[in-house]
């Protein structure tokens, strides 16, 4: 059992996805329990696999069906993929817990479809993390994306259009990626990442490889929502249902960024077209950071504001990858974690606020702190992490990014990071001001009337409140222990750190 952990990561959600759609006809609570158990099991598998590879001190290669690479499909658990798999599994679990109250009032059929699609998305993303094969990566990319399109369409009338537009752009992106892989295959005759890493270096300057890199970066850049390829993101993020949204925002773009990192740093080497690509990516990311922040300030809709903020924050990750020295990579990888926690938490908060009060627009947040104190406190912590105020996790990822940029002498990037922090502060403090400072007079004029029977009523259903609080506490606590994450996991996720 233990030696099959890598494949279990993918198999469990796939099987339970199908089972859930069927068992929902029998009993909804049973299905929900099954789905949650599956998510928990996946998390345990991920954690076990990560612990195993860290204990071994080398990548754990799993040959699907016993076919050795490069012929068969290889799953690779190393600290990088294992760590990301744990993150994905954790967010899957959190979003599923959160989704419970959100799905109340939907028909069992819809709930079953939701759970099935959600687990499919999870399976796809986990597969993207652990696969060691470029074509397999494409397949998992499509599995996760297709399920995600359908999940987004759950959000109602407008979400359908957003989902369809995302589908068109996303599939085109996948085509780009696949074409790039095709070129690599045509040149080397292999699709296995480890094998390619051996075969490619002498060929780096061939036109086919240049074209391949460009196509792959374009394809994954679209999936990562890297400026200026982010066009699909604001609509899709504005209309999707909150649990889906938090999950997608937290990990989906990150997994694509991870794929980019994996290919640029582990498959190809930083020579020829790749270093130019990285330079271009750096500038795109810098522009995206500023663009996303400015656009976020311009939004009045809270969800859309967070969506544009994602465009900016993904830029941080890509910026770190582009700078590419050890510190910058620490920063980029830590930012994957910190942004996932913070943005996931923020979308949970957005969903919770909307669920409880129906509020979506920033000006309507007036007095929200009085109505939902815990939720808004979690919001503040997550917002601080997004701004990068110590001692939250976001501060430390920014710290490494800035140090990395300093080491690379990239002063422009340092300035971009700082300016972006300030812009981020602008749009989050606007919300904080509304929630905490305005509308106090009304609140005092009419003290909240609490009938005795409802005295212990939580501001949100426990299933929604719990993930919100866990994430915000995680942001604060992991900030203090980020050194442990870096030394024990992220350090080994850098190219060349593991044999």
């Amino acid at each position: 059992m233990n030696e099959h952990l890598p494949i279990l990561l993918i198999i469990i959600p796939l099987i339970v996805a199908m089972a859930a759609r069927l068992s929902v006809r029998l009993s909804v609570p049973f299905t929900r329990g099954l789905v949650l158990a599956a998510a928990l099991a996946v998390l345990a598998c991920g954690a076990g696999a990560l612990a195993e590879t860290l204990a071994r001190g080398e990548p754990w290669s799993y040959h699907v069906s016993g076919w050795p690479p490069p012929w068969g499909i290889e799953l690779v658990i190393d600290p990088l993929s294992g760590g990301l798999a744990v993150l994905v599994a954790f967010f899957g679990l959190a979003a599923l817990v959160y989704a419970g109250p959100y799905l109340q009032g939907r028909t069992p059929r819809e709930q079953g479809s939701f759970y099935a699609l959600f687990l499919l998305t999870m399976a796809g993303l986990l597969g993207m993390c652990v696969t060691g094969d470029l074509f397999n990566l494409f397949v998992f990319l499509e599995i996760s994306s297709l399920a995600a399109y359908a999940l987004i369409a759950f959000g109602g009338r407008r979400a359908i259009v957003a989902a369809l537009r995302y589908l068109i752009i996303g599939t085109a992106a996948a085509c780009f990626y696949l074409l790039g892989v095709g070129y690599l295959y045509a040149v080397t005759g292999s699709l296995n990442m480890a094998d390619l890493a051996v075969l490619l270096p002498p060929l780096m300057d061939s036109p086919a490889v240049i074209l391949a890199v460009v196509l792959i970066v374009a394809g994954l850049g679209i999936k990562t929502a890297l400026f200026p390829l982010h066009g699909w993101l604001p609509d899709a993020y504005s209309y999707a249902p909150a649990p889906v949204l938090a999950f997608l925002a937290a990990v989906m773009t990150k997994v694509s960024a991870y794929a980019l990192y994996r290919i640029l740093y582990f498959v190809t080497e930083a020579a020829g077209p790749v270093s130019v690509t990285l330079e271009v990516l750096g500038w795109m990311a810098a522009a995206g950071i500023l663009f996303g922040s400015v656009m976020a300030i311009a939004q009045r809709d809270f969800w859309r504001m967070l969506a544009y903020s994602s465009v900016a924050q993904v830029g941080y990750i890509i910026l770190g990858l582009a700078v590419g020295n050890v510190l910058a990579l620490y920063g980029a990888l830590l930012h994957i974690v910190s942004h996932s926690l913070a943005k996931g938490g923020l979308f949970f908060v957005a969903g919770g606020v909307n669920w409880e009060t129906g509020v979506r627009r920033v000006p309507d947040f007036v007095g929200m702190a009085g109505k939902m104190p815990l939720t808004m406190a979690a919001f503040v912590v997550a917002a601080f992490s997004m701004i990068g105020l110590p001692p939250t996790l976001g501060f430390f990822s920014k710290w490494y990014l800035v140090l990395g940029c300093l080491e690379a002498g990239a002063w422009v990037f340092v300035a971009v990071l700082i300016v972006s922090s300030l812009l981020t502060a602008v749009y989050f403090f606007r919300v904080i001001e509304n929630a905490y400072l305005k509308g106090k007079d009304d609140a005092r004029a009419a003290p909240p009337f609490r009938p005795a029977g409802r005295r212990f009523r939580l501001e949100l259903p426990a299933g929604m409140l719990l993930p919100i609080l866990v994430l915000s506490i995680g942001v604060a606590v992991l900030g203090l222990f980020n050194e442990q994450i870096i030394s024990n996991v992220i350090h080994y996720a850098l190219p060349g750190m593991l044999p």
Partner: protein
Amino acid sequence: MTAEAVFSVAPLVAVLISLAAAGLILFCGGRPDLREGVTMVAAVAKFAVVLSMLPAVLGGAVVETAPLDIARGIALHFRVDAFGLLFALLASGLWIITSVYSIGYMRSLKYGHETGYYASFAVCLSAAAGIAMSGNLLTFFIFYEILTIATYPLVVHRRNAEAVSGGREYMVYLLLAGQVLFIAVAWAHYLVPGAAFTPGGFLAGAGASVLALQALFVLFMVGVGVKAAVIPLHGWLPTAMVAPTPVSALLHAVAVVKAGAFAVVRVTGFVFGPELMGELGVGVVLAWLAAATIIFASLRALSEDHLKRRLAYSTVSQLSYVVLGAALATPAAMLGAMFHIVAHAFMKITLFFCAGAIYATTHKEYIRELDGLGRRMPYTMGAFAAAALAITGMPLLVGFVSKWNLGLGAVQAGQPVFIAVLIGSALLNAAYFFPIVYRAYFGRAGEEAAHAAGEAPEVAIPAAGEQVAAAGETVAPGGEAKPSMLVPLLITAAAALVLGVLPNLGLQFYTLAQMAAAAVAGGGPGPAGGGM
């Protein structure tokens, strides 16, 4: 010179006590007595913990906690030297007094939502202690930012439009400065990875170019200068006067602005060091900037009619004494700068307590309304007069000790011109404080009150449950402030008087400052004038 290190958890405990207190305060928010009891207990406990480090530090040792690796290559590290202890003692000692005062103040002016107020206050003090005791730049920066954030709820406590816009301005200034400081800290860390604060500076051997170091110095000074309210970065301070008075006292005397001044000394004395600053030629520029701040802010204070705002400009001016001393960086100047942190704390907190007591008792906040108040509130105005005298640098009062050393430092630095600045400032101080005292004791209350009623619509509307002197009423019997406000301000005023004669009394502030200044100057003997 490497001081002997004593390992102890005391610094960490001192920081955590008030953080835990903040949590407890939020937890028992519904019960005011319990909430305020927690505040008091935490304040006293914190002071005791800080005080327990005094003997070791006086013995020439450095109290350290085991470093907690918080980021790769740099740790969360508390390391208490003489200078850090000076500030920590000051902050934690004044927290007790301020707590008593703010309980009295907040109970007389019912603003509401005080739980957040006390909690933020505790977090502020935690951050101030962290700043004082941090052993390296990253630790310092973390607490510096926490302080910024924790002060924000205090500034906007009133929740009206004025407070919100004041808070916004506060946030813009301080976040901007925080980010600039962030670059500086990261850069310094990049030049000398993980360096601890070293008396005499650690950047000299970094091998960076002069231009780079000059740029770094500018970044540092912009970063900490905003908190220290050095002109032209002072704009937020008068605006932040919308906060309740204990908060202003905290801002000015204990935590925020003081933390900025502390940071200036830390950066000049312990990051760059006097020698490097001399080589870079940045000290002189900073000194002139400080001199300009001293004079300009004093002039600005002259024309300010709002009492608290006048005090705010006075703070801007006074804290530039510290900056001036740090910029001159001679032993005596450093001593003056460090001791002025203490001296100014006692003087300014007294003044703010007085202003707050006046406001809470009579709802007067403009100087033109203060006529005859000396007869109504004799103790309060007496304390005010004493503190005002001390600020002008009257011999035998606490302000003189630091000014004397600053003057000596200017001579040591070969720049006696700054003595003229000090004297000019003393005259200006007298010019803007004595009219207040004069009015209070010799002003004609009856006429003036009628005058004010007719002409000053912006007089605050009395809150419910507030006893207000009716217009035209002469000295009301028993018009003094409540004891919980009066006693703290008398204590601080007494301290301002006594420390002028015996600067070492009680907490050995002067010795601590001497030790720190001597360490910065490279282990030389204590400067002249030490025996005051």
